[in-house]
């Protein structure tokens, strides 16, 4: 690996480490992170393919509440280094390695976020002195730690000889690597389950099944699903009695002599409000 490649790689790893915690630019999402590693190491095509497949596994790894998800940054960066770099692993092997890496990254993340508790107390002290710069520097330092959390393990991987990596992988029986690769196709359901658990209640479950049946039996693409979903949500909220209790009462009071027409009037009113 050339020095220039190594410098760019370290920068990518450092930024991914910060951004996976920030969750803003989404540089650490596999589809972006693996592509950037591929660019740094001169094998963009493999980086994109690995990233796209890992992305589907990582689709439900979300920072919600105080739960810390499996770490997309460490998984994407190191597996991409092994696939796009001199070790030249197959994409299937890269995916199999990414999962244990995601868990290692999660543990490191828990560790750093615990250290940051102490830093937050240091910030309290700076704030009490009215020291704006001090508070800012603590924030920068915390992000620096998160960057190192990915950059240091990445550097360690680059100094391991490619032959040792390949020999290690070849020592694993085929039934394991092949089985892991097959499982890589369906571990996405864990992510889906995490997202669903966040949103699900009796009111919204039916819409899950509507989406499921349409996707299983039609060729509609995801943009179409997005539009359909918006339409359904909009119409549901317009018509649900829970959100329109007041208007319904007024409507009924106004045309108590035309009970059958009231449902149509509600829709008319909803359309008028547009």
């Amino acid at each position, binding site marked *: 690996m050339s020095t220039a490649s190594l410098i760019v790689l370290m920068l990518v790893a450092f930024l991914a480490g910060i951004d996976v*915690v*920030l*969750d*803003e630019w989404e540089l650490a*999402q596999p*589809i*972006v992170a693996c*592509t950037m590693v591929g660019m740094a190491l001169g094998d963009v*095509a493999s980086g*994109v393919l690995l*990233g*796209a497949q890992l*992305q*589907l596994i990582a689709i439900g790894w*979300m*920072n*919600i509440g105080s739960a810390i998800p499996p770490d997309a940054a460490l998984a994407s960066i190191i597996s991409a280094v092994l696939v796009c770099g001199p070790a030249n692993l197959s994409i299937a092997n890269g995916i199999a390695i990414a999962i244990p890496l995601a868990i290692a990254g999660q543990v490191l993340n828990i560790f750093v976020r*615990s250290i940051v*508790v102490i*830093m*937050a107390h240091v910030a*309290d002290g700076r*704030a009490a*002195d*009215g020291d*704006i710069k001090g508070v*800012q520097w603590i*924030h920068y330092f915390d*992000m620096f730690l*998160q960057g190192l959390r990915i950059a240091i393990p990445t550097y360690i991987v680059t100094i391991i000889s490619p032959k040792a990596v390949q020999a290690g992988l070849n020592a694993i029986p085929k039934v394991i690597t092949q*089985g892991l690769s*097959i499982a*890589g*196709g*369906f*571990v*996405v*359901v*864990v992510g*889906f*389950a995490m*997202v*669903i*658990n*966040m*949103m*699900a209640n009796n009111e*919204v479950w039916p*819409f*899950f*099944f509507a*989406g*499921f049946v349409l*996707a299983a039996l039609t060729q509609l693409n995801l943009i179409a*699903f997005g539009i359909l979903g918006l339409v*359904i*949500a909009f119409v*549901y*909220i317009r018509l649900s009695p829970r*959100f329109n209790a007041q208007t319904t009462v007024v409507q009924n009071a106004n045309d108590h002599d035309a009970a059958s027409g009231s449902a149509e009037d509600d829709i008319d009113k909803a359309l008028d409000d547009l």
Partner: protein
Amino acid sequence: MVDNKAQSVQKDKQYKLTHGDMISAFWRSGFLQGSWNYERVQNVGFCFQMIPAIKRLYPSDKEKTAEALKRHLTFMQTTPVMSSLIGGITMAMEEERANGADIDDATIASVKVGTMGPLAGVGDPIFWGTIRPVIASFAASLALSGSGVMGPIIFFVVWNAIRLATRWYLQKIGYDQGTNIVQNLGGGLIQKLTTGASILGMFIMGALVPRWTKINFPLVISKVKVDGKTTTTTLQQIFNQLLPGIIPLLLTFFCIWMLRRKVNAIWLIFILFGVGIFGYWIGLLG
């Protein structure tokens, strides 16, 4: 210049946030989670976002600066994008306070505490449950169908355009409306938004389950010889006749059930890897 004009037009407003402060707060809001910690979560990041306002409103007053910094180092936890709305409201309140309005620490704290939870209820399903999975799976499918680097670029550009625009307008709305917006949010709007976002999110998840789960059962169930032609039926073909995607659906339900029994997601991933290896070994999965 802007300061002078503001002062001459409205003498009672001694301190006024500038457009530059708004841009600075907007840029800084993108570092909200940099000091994410187990105790007060996004507290340092939110304070970091408020610093341009604090500098403008309490210049060369160490004591008031210290108080303001401490006010914004309290517990903070919401969907990152939503911190722009809360930040906008809080900046409006701080501005009034600096100009002598009777707004105490408890009022500012209660607005923050009262909005961050409900706004996370809206933001999480929209951003993590819908927008990111939809763009990511669209980009991944582009990349896998051979359009190369276009997939990652589309993901990055579209996601960030939506995120930055949302942050900017939420901050603007929050600052312009101030505490009025808290009353509006109380009037059922937030419930409508949460329900709408969850409907959209659930619908998309329902679509992703059969589309993005790859599982295949090549196990041969029957071999029928008709006129010298052998027709084999695999287990997968039987499942497909039943309903395509039925196994991904059942697997998803299994995971939902396990997660609700407080099983860690990582263990679930390991269990599924075990299933993959065992299934391949006995020839059930391929």
